[in-house]
Structures are given as structure tokens and as C-alpha cells.
């Protein structure tokens, strides 16, 4: 199991020693383990830090070390809990690519990934379960999940910052609605999932009646986030 943001091992050991120690708990012979550690350290770009004490590693480096710890035992099933939490773009990409290749390149390997990043789930997972308050609302391939709401229409709008949003949720024909604000730009980004295109005119007139300008309007293919909003009825918190 590897969790994002976790601290594991002992601060007085080096990154390489810490991973080796955990490999011993899984019965991996030292020689095999050390070979794998070196290989994985090269892949994850941690080779330069192999002899650094764990306490001296950055968050990203520590997470890479944790990932290597997960893979060094060559598990059949690996639990990844928010593995890219708080990581920079490059580190997150390295991890995502490695996990995807590892699970797809070999037979009999399973990764159970929990994540709040929908794009990550879309990119990495063969099957996705959407869980809300402990209940599985849907479980299928990303494509099938998206197909489930393809009968609906998703519209994204960028408008002047808008405060009164209550009317949108209750508007007839609006199945789901979410929004994000960009305070720096003084803009609001509205996402509507509609039963059909009928309510678009009403939405636009509601916005313009408030004296707000519509900067862009886009009809888009549903994303996993849309699927989530459609099922759960709210955006991510």
C-alpha cells in the first residue's frame, strides 16, 4: 500500500536502506531487492538521492521513495491511495506513467487506486467506481461511465463573476449544475448538465439580465468529473 503524503520508515536510514528494510518484511532476498531498488530509483529519478537520509528528502522525493517501496516487492495487488497528492507536475507524471505501464505491461497485476483527480483516474484506470458517502454509485470502464451521461448535454460558460447562482440549480431542464470562481480574473466558470439544449436560452438571458457578460460558451463531451457531478449531484469539496 502506498498513500500520498505519508511518512514511512526511519529518518536515520537512507532512502535505499528504508526501501530495502520494507522489502525484508515481504521476504524478498536482499540481492534481488537491492537490484530492483536500483532499477526503480533510476526510473523514478531518485538515484541521486539513494544515499540521502529520509529526513532530508523533499515531499516529492519521499513520495517517489514510497512508490518504489510499493513496487519493490513486485506485488500482485497494489493499493495506491492518492499517490500524486501534493506532487509537482513532473513527479506526478512519472508516477502515473510508471503505474500505467506496470499494470498494463504484465499479466495478473492489479492496482486499486483511490483518487480525487478525475483526469488521473481517466488516464490510469480500466474500471472506475464512483463512491459517495461509502456507497458505490457506479462501477464501469471510463468510456461506459461517460456514455451514461452522453444522452445529456454539457455546457461550460465563462462569465463575469456572478454571485446569485440559486436560480440555475432549480431551472427546469437543468439536471446538474456546478461552478468555480476565479477571483483574480473576476470570472465565474459555470458547468451545466442539461437534459437537452432547451434551457440554454434561459440560462443566457438570466446571466445577461444580471448585467453580466458571457465571455465564452462551449458545448463539450462529458468528462469523468461530469459523470461524478451527475451522479453525486455536487462538485468536489
Amino acid at each position, binding site marked *: 500500500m502506498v498513500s500520498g503524503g505519508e*511518512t514511512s520508515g*526511519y*529518518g*536515520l*536510514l537512507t532512502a535505499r536502506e528504508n526501501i530495502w528494510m520494507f522489502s525484508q518484511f515481504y521476504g524478498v532476498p536482499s540481492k534481488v531487492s537491492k537490484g530492483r531498488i536500483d532499477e526503480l530509483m533510476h526510473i523514478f529519478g531518485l538515484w541521486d538521492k539513494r544515499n540521502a537520509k529520509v*529526513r*532530508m528528502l523533499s515531499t516529492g522525493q519521499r513520495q517517489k521513495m514510497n512508490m518504489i517501496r510499493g513496487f519493490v516487492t513486485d506485488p500482485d495487488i497494489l493499493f495506491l491511495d492518492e499517490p500524486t497528492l501534493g506532487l509537482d507536475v513532473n513527479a506526478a507524471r512519472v508516477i502515473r506513467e510508471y503505474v500505467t505501464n506496470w499494470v498494463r505491461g504484465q499479466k495478473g497485476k492489479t492496482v486499486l487506486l483511490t483518487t480525487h483527480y478525475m483526469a488521473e483516474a481517466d488516464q490510469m484506470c480500466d474500471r472506475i467506481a464512483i463512491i459517495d458517502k461509502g456507497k458505490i454509485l457506479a462501477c464501469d470502464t471510463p468510456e461506459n461511465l461517460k456514455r451514461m451521461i452522453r444522452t445529456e448535454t454539457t455546457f461550460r460558460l465563462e462569465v463575469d463573476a456572478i454571485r446569485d447562482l440559486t436560480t440555475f440549480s432549480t431551472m427546469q431542464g437543468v439536471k446538474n449544475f456546478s461552478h468555480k470562481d476565479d477571483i483574480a480574473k473576476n470570472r465565474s466558470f459555470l458547468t451545466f448538465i442539461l437534459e437537452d439544449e432547451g434551457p440554454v436560452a434561459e440560462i443566457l438571458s438570466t446571466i445577461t439580465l444580471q448585467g453580466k457578460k458571457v465571455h465564452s460558451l462551449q458545448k463539450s463531451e462529458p468528462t469523468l468529473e461530469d459523470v461524478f457531478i451527475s451522479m453525486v449531484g455536487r462538485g468536489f469539496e
Partner: protein
Amino acid sequence: MSTYWRTFKTAAWLGWEMDSNWTEPWLFVLYSVIKPVAGAFILVLMYIVFVAIGRPQGDTDAFSYMYVGNSFFIFVATVLFGTFQVIQSDREWYQTIRYIYISPISYYVYILGRAASKIAVAVFAVAITLLFGAMFLGVRLHLALADVPMFLVSTVLGLAVLLAIGICLGGISFLTAKHTHGLAEGIPGLFYVFCGVLFPLSILPTWGQAIGRAIPLTYWFEITRRLIAPTITVNTTLAGFDPLTILLFLIVSSVGFFALSVLIYKVGEYFARKAGKIDMTTSY
């Protein structure tokens, strides 16, 4: 000033909660008493064994000397531990040091506040231990009313020195691994040996006596013993000085120690910041 006071107050509250809220109040009181009383009993048994095999007529003077010194030593062990472990526990255990350290408060005052609850508990434990000794073990205590002011002044000074030493150790532990127990046991041990706590300085070799005389706690134990157990006749090598002179020694050496402690703390903190060690974790 109000920021310092607020920091102190909040840290003292936090320290008290950390020390006591893990259990029921009565259990906490019992816990706070059992440890020091058991420590005193080790000495009682050492005395009993020695008397049984080597001195059948007993030596009540030596016993009283040792018992009173040991009772007041509870302050040393508790206050020192209460001070330096703030850094180690915040760093290694709760891992909150980075948030507290960067907040706009004096970390120095914060440590003092955290130690305050330990002092409160120590006062209680010292009183219980002394009372037990006087009631059941024949320790002869007598504090004259006229000596009370001097006793209070010396106690405050003694506690101030202990806080200063604790903070100095805190500065050192910024740079070291998690050695809480080595420190908790070892540093008080240093004072146990060199400050005439259990035995007079005359037992030590000359160089040991010189070390003892350079530490303010030696004078604190001497003056405290003279004031609350004046009938003890053990020769302490400080017999030639009257209590007021010893109080003066205590004041002078305390000032020196305080300055040294601030210096060491600052140096420790400076190097820890430079090496990025303020929030390191070093468990093994």
C-alpha cells in the same frame, strides 16, 4: 508584553493538557506522586541495606541529608525534562514544530510556558515527598518563619536556573537525534553527581568539587537544606559560608548560567536553521 504573556498562557495551558488529559484527574495525581516517592524509596532501601550490613547504629544525619536533597531534586528532573522535551516532542511526536516555530511568537517564551505545568506538578510532588519523609521516615524538617523569605527567593532562583539549563538543552537538541531518554536520565545525573544532592561535595575528587562549585544548583541545594533541615551536621565543604553569602553565590552563578543558556540556545537554533534541522524526524 501582552504577546509574551498570551504566548506563555497558551503554552502553559497546552502543556497542562498534554501532561494531564490522557487520564482521569485522580489517576494523574497518583501518577505524579508515585514516581518521585518511588525514587525516594530507592534511597531509603539503599540506606536500610547499608545499615543492616555495615552500620547497625544507623546514620540519621546522612539519611536526612540525602532525603532532603533527593526531594528537591524532583524539581531538577521534572523541570529539565519538561523544558527540553518540548522541542523533541513537538518535532518528532506531534510534528507541529514547524507551525509553532514560524508563528509570530517568541519560541523561547513558548518553551517556558510549556514547562510551567511541569513546575506545578513538581511543587506538589516535592511537598508530598518531604511530608512523607517527615511523618514516616524520621527526616527532621524545620523551616523557621524568619527564613521563609530567603527560602522563597532561593527556590525561585533555583527554578529559574533550571529553566535556563532546560532551554540550553533545548538548543542542543535542535541539532541532535531523538535522545529524549538519554537526556532525561543523563543531564539530571550530571547534577545528581556534582551538586551535592545525595552526598556532600567532599566525597568527590578535587576536580569534581570544582565542577560542583561552578554550578548554581550546588548552592541552591545547600541553602535549601540549611533552611528547611538546619539540624543536619554533615560537612558539605561550604560550611564556612553563611546562608546570605551562599545566596549571593547562587545569584551570581545563576546570572552567568542564564546568559550561557541563551547563548547556547541561540547558537543551536542558528545551526539547526542553517542545516534545515528544525523540523527533522530521526526515529529509529
